[in-house]
Structures are given as C-alpha cells and as structure tokens.
C-alpha cells in the first residue's frame, strides 16, 4: 500500500525525541511504513468532533485514594537484581556531570 508521505513528518527529529538510534536502512523503511500509517490515520480529519468530549478511559475513575499506611517495600537486593551494573547498593551509570 503506497500513500503520500505526510509533508511534516521528520523522522530524525522523532527518533531524537524517542531516544532511538536508527540505522540508514531503518530510516528508509520506517519513513515509508510510518508515512503510510500517518496517511491512513489522517482520515480522522473528516469526522465532525464539534462539541464532543475526549475519552481518555472508557470508565474513568477520579481521585482514587490509597490508605496512607507504612508497608514493607521491595528489598534493595530485589530492586537491584535486574540492574545492568551495580555497586554498593547503587546502580552504576557513566559520569553525567564533568
């Protein structure tokens, strides 16, 4: 299915916003594929939505409160078990500030 690519669709900018490094091959492929989908979803522009409220959830609940009581949390060892790198009960990351 081929469709005109949306003129204001800047893949490099989107990849930057999404923190995704894309290869040149991925860029070429995704530009066409995502462009197709954007062209398709643009059909929503034909719907008259004047005065229609948006639906964020089908059955919205508001102000769901929990009781403010102390409960045991995840032990440090369990919380760190999936860390890519750890030391002294902390997650190791590259230096962020010089």
């Amino acid at each position, binding site marked *: *299915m081929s469709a005109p690519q949306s003129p*204001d*669709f800047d*893949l490099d*900018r*989107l*990849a930057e*916003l*999404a*923190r*995704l*490094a*894309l*290869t040149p091959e*991925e860029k070429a*492929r*995704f530009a066409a*594929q*995502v462009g*197709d*989908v*954007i062209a*398709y*979803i643009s*059909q*929503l*522009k034909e*719907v008259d*939505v004047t005065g*229609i*409220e*948006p*639906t*964020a*959830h*089908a*059955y919205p*609940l508001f102000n*769901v409160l*929990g009781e403010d009581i102390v409960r045991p949390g*995840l032990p440090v060892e*369990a*919380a760190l*078990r*999936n*860390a*890519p*790198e750890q030391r002294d009960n902390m*997650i190791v*990351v*590259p*230096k*962020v500030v010089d």
Partner: protein
Amino acid sequence: MTGDLFYRSISELSDGLARGQFSAAELTQAVIDRTTRVDGQVRAFNSFAPDDALDQARAADQRRHAREVRGPLDGIPVGIKDVIAVAGQPLTASSKMLANFVSPYDSTVTARLKQAGAVLWGRLNLDEFAMGSSTENSGTVKHGEAWQTRNPWDLSRVPGGSSGGSAAAVAAGEAIVSLGSDTGGSIRQPAAFCGLVGLKPTYGQVSRYGLIAYASSLDQIGPFAHSVEDAAITLGAIAGHDPLDSTSFSTAVPDYRSELKQRRGPWKLGIPKEYFGEGLDPEVGAAVAAAIDHYRKLGCEIREISLPHTKYAIGVYYIIATAESSSNLARYDGIRYGHRSADASDALDIYYKSRAEGFGPEVKRRIILGTYVLSSGYYDAYYLRAQKVRTLLRNDFLAAYQSVDAILTPTAPTAAFARGATASPLEMYLNDIYTIGVTLAGLPALSLPCGFTRSNLPIGLQIIGQPFQEANLLAIAQAYERDHDWSQRRPALS
C-alpha cells in the same frame, strides 16, 4: 490413565482430583510431558520450569490430603503470557530488551491464581511487548533460533497475536487454560485462530498490576480456554477490585460458573451491518451467519444495528495505542533494568543505543508513530481528535445497547493466515477491524469457536457484551456451545 489429561476440562480434572483418580503432580507431569513432546513444533513457550511447577502441584496434593482444597483451579496448570509478572520467574515480553529480566514480585492476577491453588506453568510467547497480530514480532531467541509460535492446527500458519503463545499452548494441550492480554484484539483474535474461547473483560474488571504496560487505557488481562465454563472459572479467579490498580473497578464479581446455570435467555442480539462488509472471508461470513441463525432458533431476537463510526476505529486505535506505548516504553532506558548497550559512551548514548539494540522493528515503528502524534503541534490534530472520535465510537455501542443485550460479529475477517506473509504494517493493522472498536469502548467481548474452514482452520464468533456483564456474555456463549461440538475438536499434533 493420565494419557489425555492435558485435554480435559477444569471440571473433569477437579472431579478426577477429588476422586483420587490422579494427583495434581501426575496431571502437571502429563502437561509437562506433552509440552516437552510438542513445543519444539508449536513454540508457544519462551521458557518453563518443570521442577517449580511440580513443587506447586505437590503443594496442591498436600492441601487436598489435608482437606484444604481451594476450589476448582486447585492443582490445575495455567499458562501465563510473558508480559504478566510471576515472582522469581523470567519476564521478557518476548523482547531482547528484557531477555534477562526476572520479576521481583507477582502481578495481582498471578497472586490470585496462586491463592486459588493453580499451578503457574511457563512463560508464553507473544509479539514483542504485545505489539502485533501474528506472534511473528516475537523477539525471543531459543536454542539459537528465532522462536515464533506456530498454529497447532496448521504449523505453516500463525496462531494470531499478540497472545499467540497463550492460545497455541492451550490448543496444543500444553496448558489446561492460560492468561493473555488484549489491547486491540490480542486475546480474541488468537482464540479465533486456534479454536478456543478467549475472553477480554470490561476495562477495569481485572487488575493490570504487574502487567507490562503497552497502552494503559486499553490493556486488559483475560483467559483462554477450551470451553466457556473453563473461561468462566478462570475469570472468576482473577477478576475484582484491586487497590494496586487505580483503574480497577469495585463492582461485585459474581460466581460466573453458577451464573451460567441461571441465565438462559432468550436475548436480544444485535448484528452491526458495518462488520459484514468488504474484506470478510466468505467461509468466515457463512459460519458466523449460521451461528446467528442458531441463536434465532433458540428464540433470540436478532436485530440489525449500526455502529456508524466503525471505519474510524483502526485510525483511532493506532493513534491512542501508539501514543500511550511511546510514553510507557520510555522507561526502557538501559539504566535501571533491561538491556544496556555495551558500547555506549555516556548516559544519552546508553538511551539511544540500548533502545536501538533492545527493541525490534514493530516496537520502534510504534514508538515513532506515538511520538509523532503526541509531538508539539500535532497533539490536537491526532491524539486529542482520536480521543474525541473514541467518544463517538463508544457512544455507538452504548446507543446500540439501548435495544440489544449483546452484539454478534466475526472475530477476525479470515481464519489463521500463513506465516511469513508479506503484508505491510498498515495491512496487518487493518486485520484488527472487528476487535479494536470493542477495546476502545472498554467493553467485554469473547471469541467462541463457530466452525472450521474447508482447510480445517478454526473460525471465531465474537460476542460483545455490555459493560461489566461478563456473566451474561458467558451465558450467551454457552447457549451456542451447548449445541455444537467445535470446542471438542483437537489439532492433529504428533
């Protein structure tokens, strides 16, 4: 004695356990043996732990011995989609991003299944992060090869998706029932493709705590089973309010199994004309028409209805779902857990490279699309507009429910399609046409076997219920199931 245990119903099995005809350990061993025998072909499982399952089964046998049986699921092996956390077990979402992740805690649904005595069995394959309709987007690598689930009815075909492993495992006798998750059809479509009952509950009826988030306003967990009664029993174990999920509703959970005996109809059933148009395979259309006829013979009033915004459902879905997923998947940054690139130089580089290496192509496409529809300048045109059209779609259903109790449609336009089909992403998305509107409206719906194609592939009837009326939905399904033997058929796997 224990030869075909893996294909029996929960009520037969719990009866056999009660009579001492076999133990939970023997039942679990039968399921393990079956899995070991067929999963090399079916590839439903990302992983499984026989010793852990047998430990759970022996605990069930001890409870039985002590007369502390917890109910019909006590000792029954239940497969779990690999996006639902089970404490101490892998949780991969079939993604390289989480290939080595181990759940630090239980999801609410698995905690409740344990409470009910179920034997949690294996981690079931899916399209990566539940994004897909064929399980071909699975990023699982096992025994050195790409591990994509096959349809047990025809191994050259897909099982559907995203919960393809959950469906294939039950269809192949590798679990008695299983849990999947449904965001745009990910329980119902694989249930249809694999000849099973698959139920997506009302949004808010089952806790999402411990479910890896894809699109949070749509995701729901639900069961796969061979029969309506098995689905009812499994739903009963997992449904109900959970303070750990702020979108969980505090409606009462009926005893779905005993409600099946109470609710006999006849019902007023709506047939939406928009669901029977172009693109519907004639064999599927004929099977669904025959099912509708059967309901008419049962005394149900069949009414043609209209859901006029149906044609916009896929557009709305791929805006809302990708927007939510681009936000939800931002957490996979390579810092605290998940894949971290080995050749990143600084923190920002870790984000870019870990995500590039950890995510597969469909996930990347959806993150990019979601980022686009949420980005400054396009939010009103896409995301906000999609939410408004979502209101119109929902209103279509609510208006229809003024005059009908439930709605009948095909689950998918075709039976299971071939693996490796070269459809574009957009063409794949269009296959979800019958399941997606339901999710956007937050309604409960199930897929029920209603026939087979000439090439012996299962066909699914979708029954869409009113909000929080799962008991009615199940009863309507059972009224049809009682008079047909589709659900008794099994694939010819060796």
